């Protein structure tokens, strides 16, 4: 049997920093999106099954709580996408200097709120 190994990211050891908090947020937003992707799959399935299955889910989505869920989902989506671009750039060894890491981090945070707000305002 394999030896037990420490589990990341040792939240209890390190003081929170922008870098670590954004990394954890990337995972959390990914988990939200994974769950939301399953909801999209359910939405497509009930759509194919017929109106009697579709309407209850549609009513739930139109409810303020449903709209809040969709807003949270879109927020997670925009953040995960923008921060994902940052991760891909790092894989290409772009923007790895600590100053750049912080600059792009703040840029992602501000852009996430602006883009999400603009989308909900426009659509």
């Amino acid at each position, binding site marked *: *049997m*394999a030896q*037990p190994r420490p*589990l*990341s*990211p040792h939240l209890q050891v390190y003081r929170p920093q922008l870098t670590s908090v954004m990394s954890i947020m990337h*995972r959390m937003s*990914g*988990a939200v*999106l*994974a769950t*939301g*992707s*399953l909801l*999209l*799959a359910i*939405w*497509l*399935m009930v*759509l*194919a099954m017929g*109106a009697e299955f*579709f*309407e209850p889910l*549609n009513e739930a*989505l*139109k409810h303020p709580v*449903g*709209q809040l869920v*969709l807003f949270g*989902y*879109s927020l997670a*989506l*925009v953040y995960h*996408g923008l921060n*994902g*671009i940052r*991760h*891909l750039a790092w*894989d*290409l*060894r772009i923007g790895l200097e600590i100053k750049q890491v912080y600059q792009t981090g703040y840029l992602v945070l501000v852009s996430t709120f602006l883009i999400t707000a603009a*989308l*909900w305002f426009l*659509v």
Partner: protein
Amino acid sequence: MVFGLSKGSNLSRVSKNYPREAGYGHWRWQRFSAVITLLLMGYFTYLMISIGSLDYAGARTFVATLHQGIALSFLVAAGLFHAALGVQMIIEDYVPLASGRVTLVFLARGIFCTAALASVASISLVAEWI
């Protein structure tokens, strides 16, 4: 050259000596699916915001439109594949092996694979491709 590593760098020399560790495939597919999903991200965000306002007839018309159906199919396939890889990484990082990590990984793969197949089948039915 490994994707993202320039020739002659320390990391690429290491990768040349150990070119196909088990995690490499996962890493590569996660990046590949991320790029595909990123290309569809704008559409996905628009979709998330707009589906709440559609009624049944409107939703069917929306999905049955050829370009929407094709984009949705790509989106659920790439998105759910990327989600499965991401969930696997979270499970591997936080669930000890003795607590059933491998079983959880296979369970997650099964759920996301089933969801992807069911989604594409649903789109095909609504769009009357089958």
